[in-house]
């Protein structure tokens, strides 16, 4: 069905190799990380171009063919998630440099910060490779391995700050992740027992509504739901995201949360569609509603800025799950567009928010919102980045968040299920409330109040955040581009599905 492309392995191999290199060589660590980010960016660009020209492509690792071989597969959604990771990841790499340089220059405990910086770069690059691998895998067992890699690297990153709170949060996060992985693995075993294959396309051709497959999908979904922190299984997320170091928080909220969600969506709407029932998608929609409301209310309530952003993530994850009942199981609507748009814009905006919050924390020394008045005078770029990212989270035009919510709303109205539309609006109001709380403090300059601010600024602490925030904003203006990419993938796929032999 497609052309094999050697470029597909670059986004997996290069970050992993660079990660190992940074562990060995401390001196060239940042250069290696930057090179890896650059190479990854270029290779993802080439893959996107190939996708436009010739549709989805796949690659058999080591030349072993099905059913024994392991396949990598690039289609529209996978390519867009890769692009999201490439852009956000490059900014986080730069920001991490600025963040740790600042901490090394103004130490609270000197030697520890240098060690943290080194481990950060190693773990982050390994995590990056694992995330790219997860997006590209087309084999349920390979997906299990990448899930575990992501879990281990993410938990280790969470514990990096060395504070007791973050270590407890990291341990809890790791246990939840392992529980989710084991549940997924058990589901995988059920599938292998029933069909004897692991490749996603082979499974897709075989799936029928038998009890074993239903149980398998239920087990896998519960595992992935735990990992993606859907309400009421979100309890581990706010402490883990809020207590980690700022670049780590940006990685966790911006990228890691999306991985299990992406898998869940792919399983439900591409692979196991015959097994999925209307009741199940409605249930996910209701849980998503709970997440939007609960996360929003908690975010309005919290004093600490990073806690607010973390609960905002819980709320935004709810939006992603709202796409499940609205996507339509009959295949009439382009199911991926809503989720992809939400994921792209949330990834950029939330990473930008955590970066800005980290810059504020470093300069001011705390992140209690009521005491942040006047930060704009000291950190104009970071404040602007936070405000623009906030526009995205609330979903004002022309941001990517607006397009995502627009797609959700129009799908709700078109299918006559207007009540989901009300929830979309209610969530936006809550988001506006908690974003306003912060922006009011950031932009107001109180009279005769002096903040104790640590000088000087580092450009790397502020500009990556602004760049990401603006990217999320511009995403709304460039909306046709990703949609066309998704469409080009679908068209080729549909052409393949209509072929006599089905998908190869």
């Amino acid at each position, binding site marked *: 069905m497609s052309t094999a492309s050697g470029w597909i392995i670059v986004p997996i191999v290069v970050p992993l190799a660079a990660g190992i290199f940074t562990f060995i060589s401390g001196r060239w660590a940042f250069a290696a990380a930057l090179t890896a980010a650059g190479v990854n960016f270029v290779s993802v660009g080439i893959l996107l171009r190939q996708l436009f020209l010739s549709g989805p492509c796949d690659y058999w690792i080591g030349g072993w063919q099905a059913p024994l071989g392991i396949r990598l597969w690039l289609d529209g959604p996978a390519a867009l998630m890769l692009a999201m990771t490439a852009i956000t990841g490059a900014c986080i790499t730069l920001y991490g440099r600025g963040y740790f340089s600042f901490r090394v220059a103004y130490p*609270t405990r000197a030697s520890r*910060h240098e060690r943290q910086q080194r481990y950060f770069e190693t773990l982050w690059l390994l995590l990056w490779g694992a995330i790219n691998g997860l997006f590209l895998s087309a084999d349920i067992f390979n997906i299990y391995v990448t899930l575990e890699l992501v879990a281990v690297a993410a938990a280790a990153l969470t*514990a990096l700050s060395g504070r007791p709170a973050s*270590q*407890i949060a990291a341990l809890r996060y790791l*246990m939840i992740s392992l529980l989710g992985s084991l549940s997924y693995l*058990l589901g995988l075993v059920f599938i292998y027992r029933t069909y004897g294959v692991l490749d996603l396309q082979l499974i897709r051709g075989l799936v029928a509504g038998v009890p074993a497959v239903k149980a398998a999908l239920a087990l896998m979904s519960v595992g992935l739901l735990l990992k993606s922190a859907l309400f009421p299984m979100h309890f581990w997320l706010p402490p883990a995201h809020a207590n980690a170091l700022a670049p780590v928080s940006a990685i966790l909220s911006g990228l890691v949360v999306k991985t299990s969600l992406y898998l869940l969506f792919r399983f439900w709407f591409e692979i196991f569609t015959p097994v999925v029932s209307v009741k199940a998608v409605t249930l996910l929609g209701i849980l998503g509603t709970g997440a939007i409301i609960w996360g929003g209310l908690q975010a309005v309530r919290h004093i600490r800025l990073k806690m607010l952003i973390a609960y905002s993530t819980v709320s935004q994850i709810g939006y992603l799950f709202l796409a499940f009942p609205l996507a339509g199981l009959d295949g009439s609507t382009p199911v991926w567009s809503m989720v992809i748009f939400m994921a792209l814009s949330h990834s950029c905006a939330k990473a930008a928010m955590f970066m800005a919050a980290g810059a504020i924390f470093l300069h001011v020394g705390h992140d209690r919102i009521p005491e942040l008045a006047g930060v704009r005078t000291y950190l104009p770029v970071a404040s602007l980045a936070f405000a623009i990212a906030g526009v995205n989270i609330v979903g004002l035009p022309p941001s990517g968040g607006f397009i995502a919510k627009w797609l959700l709303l129009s799908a709700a109205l078109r299918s006559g299920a207007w009540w989901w539309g009300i929830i979309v609006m209610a969530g936006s109001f809550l988001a506006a409330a908690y974003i306003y709380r912060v922006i009011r403090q950031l932009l107001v300059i109180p009279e005769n109040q002096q903040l104790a601010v640590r000088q000087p600024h580092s450009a790397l602490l502020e500009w990556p955040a602004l760049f990401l925030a603006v990217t999320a904003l511009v995403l709304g203006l460039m909306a046709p581009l990703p949609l066309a990419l998704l469409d080009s993938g679908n068209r080729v796929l549909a052409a393949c599905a209509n072929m006599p032999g089905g998908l190869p």
Partner: protein
Amino acid sequence: MSTTMLYSLTGLALFVYGFYGLLASSHLLRKILALNVMSTGVFLILVATSYRQAAAAVDPVPQAMVLTGIVVGVSTTALALTLACKVQENSNFKNRMAGKNTQSERFSGG
């Protein structure tokens, strides 16, 4: 009941038992062990799956999966144990300091 079925049901029982242990025990070490019991249960089912009817050779794919799973399990357990040690050390430290009543909130970045 066939042998395969017996092994599979045992594996399932181990999985459920481990899950119960994870929820019921409060000690960190017990929780980590409970996760290991769960994974052992899954591996047992996988090994049972690889058995094919009497004369045929054993299916190697599940065995490869179990091997990979064991490697993954070793590394995740190692990480979990390290974190648990750190958490325990911190709580010991805190308890000692609480005795002296001089513990103050320390700023260490964020």
